[in-house]
Structures are given as C-alpha cells and as structure tokens.
C-alpha cells in the first residue's frame, strides 16, 4: 500500500501536513510532541512536511510544492539497521512501522533513511514515523470512503492518491503508468513504494478557445488618433 503524490496539482497549502499531525497526535503513535509551539524556538514531530522548490530558470522555471512523508520502501534500510527489531515492514501490506515498546531510541534508523521520514520523539525517547494511517485505512468504525490516510482525505485539490501499488491493475498503479510516476533518489536503491507524478509541461498555446496565446498591447498605434490625443500621449509618455 502506498501514496501517489501529484506534483502538478499540489498547491502547497500544508493541509495534508496539518491533518496528519491532527490525526496522528491521537492515533497509533500518539502523542506527537510539540515544544514551545508558539514561541521563538518551536520544535515538534511531524510525519509529513511540505517543501517548496523552484526548478529551472525564467519562463521555463516552475514552482513545485513537494509533500514528503515515509515512502514505505521495498528495501527499507531503516528496518535492517534496527538493532532491536522495533522497526519492521509488514508482510501483508508493506507498511513500515516502529514498535514503541521495544525501540531503544538509538536513532540509527533515521540516519539510514535518505528521505528524512523519521523523527525522534525526545519526550518518549523513541523514533516515530508515518504509519500510512493504519488506524484509519482498516478502521471499520469509519465510513468506507473515509478509510484513507488523513493526508489523502484532507487534500482540497486531490493531489494525493492512496491505493495498492503492488497491484499493477489498481487505479493508483495505472495513474503512475499514465503519468510517468517516479521514485525519489532511485540511485540509492531503496525502491520506495510511494510515487511522485511530475508536473505537466507548461501550456504555450491557449488551445481550442480561439484566444491568442499572448495578449498584444493595444496602444502602440497612434496614427488614427487626433492632435489632442497625440499631444496627451506625448505629455504622459515623458
């Protein structure tokens, strides 16, 4: 199971990060600590963070909002380096979790994660991370339509998709195939489950509406104007 994040659609509103925090501070890994939340040195544990990047230069440049959470890798080094077995990847759905009762807080898993998915809870002395909302997606007390991770349920623009990426016929897998979904840092070989959909190419033409691709200034030709208007133009152009 995993997420597909559409970087073409994300508007960078941080609603996914906020709803993640809200749900998870009462969920499986609760509480998610906050220290001095309104002060000068705010510090807290979040499972989902939205970075904003600029890519490319000038008219070809893009602003891309980039939500990042645990990618639930197929090759999770955070699990293999764990000396206690507190970090584990579930066989049935591939979700990577931490057992807070056996974690010794050595932090090695956070060093082994290239993506910064894990954050240390210094109040409890254990590592915490995205659970893919296991307490929502299998929660029979919720309506079926609500059984998706909190970040997905709250996204106001539909930039986040949840589903079975292990099934090539699932809607999320088809979406990845259609849109050229990709892995982050594939060179490290972690084989993340979560996929990112690239921003679509910018539109250079206005399409079928008949509008011009670019508006022309209307005031350059003064040949039809009278003496008075030309004089005003000269005065104002000075």
């Amino acid at each position, binding site marked *: 199971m995993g997420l597909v994040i559409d*970087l073409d659609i994300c508007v*960078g509103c*941080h609603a996914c990060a906020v709803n993640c925090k809200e749900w998870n501070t009462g969920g499986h890994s609760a509480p998610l600590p906050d220290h001095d939340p309104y002060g*000068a040195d*705010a510090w807290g*544990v*979040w499972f989902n*963070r*939205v*970075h*904003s*990047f*600029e*890519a*490319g*230069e000038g008219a*070809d*440049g893009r*602003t*891309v909002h*980039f939500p*990042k959470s645990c990618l639930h890798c197929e090759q999770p*080094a955070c*699990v*293999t*380096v*764990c*000396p*206690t077995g*507190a970090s584990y990847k579930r066989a049935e759905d591939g979700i990577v979790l931490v057992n807070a009762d*056996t*974690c*010794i807080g*050595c*932090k*090695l898993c*956070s*060093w082994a*994660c*290239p*993506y*910064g998915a894990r*954050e*240390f809870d*210094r109040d*409890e*002395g*254990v*590592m915490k991370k995205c659970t893919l909302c296991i307490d929502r997606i299998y929660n029979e007390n919720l309506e079926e339509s609500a059984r998706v991770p909190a970040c997905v349920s709250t996204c106001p623009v539909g930039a986040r998709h949840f589903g079975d990426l292990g099934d090539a016929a699932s809607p999320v897998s088809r979406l990845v195939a259609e849109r050229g979904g*990709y*892995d*982050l*840092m*594939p*060179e*490290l*070989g972690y084989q993340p489950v979560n996929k*990112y959909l*690239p*921003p679509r190419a910018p539109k250079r033409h206005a399409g079928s509406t008949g509008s011009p691709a670019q508006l022309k200034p209307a005031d350059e030709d003064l040949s039809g104007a009278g003496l008075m208007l030309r004089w005003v133009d000269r005065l104002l152009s000075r």
Partner: protein
Amino acid sequence: MHPAPSVILFTVLSGTGYGMLFLLGYGAATRLLPPDMRFGIAAFAMAIVFITVGLLASLFHLGHPERAWRALSQWRSSWLSREGLLAVATYLPTAPFAIAWSFFGLNAGIPAVSGAIAGLLAAATVFATSKIYATLKPIQQWHNSWVTPGYLVIALMSGALWLNVLLQWRGLSRPTIAFIAAGAAAVGLAIKICYWRSIDTTPARSTPESATGLGAIGRVRLLESPHTQDNYLLREMGYRVARKHSWRLRRIALSFGFFVPCVLAGLTAAFTGKLATWTALAAALSAGLGILVERWLFFAEARHTVTLYYGHRNS
C-alpha cells in the same frame, strides 16, 4: 551529521581499549609481551576501563538505555546489533585470559587461546563499529571504502601507543610494540589523506534534482522550507562545518593524531628510562587529542541526503 560527544567518546575510547586488547591477546600468545603482574594488571585495567566507559558513553546516546539489551537480537541484519554482541562477547574470554596471564604468568594453553580469541573479538568489534557507518548509503562520506581501514588502524595505533607507555613505565621496553605504533600511525596518516582526497573529489551521488525528481525541468533550489525552526532532522543531520575550519582541523588531526605519535613512538625504541616513558606518554596523549578531532570531523564533515530537501547541495 551532528557530532554527538557520546558517540565520539565511545568510538575513540572503546577503539583504544580494543586495540590494546588485540595486542595483549596476540602479544601474550606469541610471547612478545612479558608476563609481568603489574604491567598485566595495568594494561588490562586500562583496556577494560576504556572499553567499558566507551560503551557506557554510547548508552547515553539512547532514548531508552534500560532497553539496551534488546539491541543484541538483530545480529542477522544490523551491524549495530553485531557490534553489541561482539562487545559483550569480548568480555568473556578476556576475563580468564587477563587473570591467568597477569597473576599466574601463564602464556600457553587455554589462557593463550582465550587471549587470541579475545584479540580476534576485539578486532571484530571495531570492524563492526566501522560497518555501522560504512553501510549507510545516505551519507556518502561514510559509505566509503577508506572508513573501515581507518577505524581498524586507528584502534591498533591507539592501543599500541598506550601499551608502549605501560611497557616503558615498567622498564620492559619492547621495540616491536613501539614500531607497531609508529607503523600504524604512518599507515593511518596515509589512510586519512586518501579518505579526505576521496570525499573531496567524489561527486555527490544524490542531488536536489534526484531527491525531488525535478531535474528534467532544471536546476532545483529550495523556495520555502516546510518549517521555520530547525526540526529533529536538521539538528541531527543538518550539521555543517565551515570548509576553512575543516581544513585547519584536518591538519590538527593529521599532525597530532598521526605524525607526532609516529615520530615519538619511533623514538621511544631508542630511548631508555624516564625519557622513554615520558616520550611514549606524549605520543599517546597527542594521538588521543588528534583522534578526537579526527572523529569529530568524521561526523561534522558527513552530509546526509535529507539536507538536499533543505536547499543544501552536498558536493
């Protein structure tokens, strides 16, 4: 990476202790080291104190030190677990060997075999420590083939330097130990120079472009951080040392950690009496200072790929 004092202290101190134990184990078995009660007691006490204090220091790094025993369970996949098991296992043959050799002067049969096993386990523990770092792919400066040789040679050098101090103090000068120390220092110097050349010249494997997958659009730079204050990730992994400081500290590490000990340890083979003892002590203390700087740099110069998401470019 944040240079945590507990981890620096652990790797330096326990590395020195394991280096001593390695040399004691094989020095006794090959009769290179003389079975002398005072030397034996001092040498084993020092090695065990260094190892134990180092291991305890590493426990302070944990969020739950009382659960540390759980770390012995995942030896099939985790180098940290293997290190823990080897560290505990090293104590077992060390105890009978230390008693038999120090108090009864036995350097054959079971004591010699247990000494050799203790030496092997000591070396294996340092090897496992180095592999914890060397297997972490997100940190290119650690995922480097010079890291493991560096850890092993520095442990051997530090151990030999302190044994040399104790031998000189007891008037039992063994030029072989002095030459092992000087030789290890020379090799260590070469390894660190190769290591720094390697990390300075190897282009970064991961970039902000590969981290975001936006390289097809163009060069990627951070527009807005997700948070206004440093979070755990930046405090733990965002540490950066200024390049000009880094160069100065490298020179300090090379001079005090390797060059000075190499020369002084070599000289102790020619000196006798108190002059030899003080020279050996100066060599060991110089190395201790230099290796603390070296280990601090090992962390401070290491750059984690998570910083790519925060506008850093790790090259």
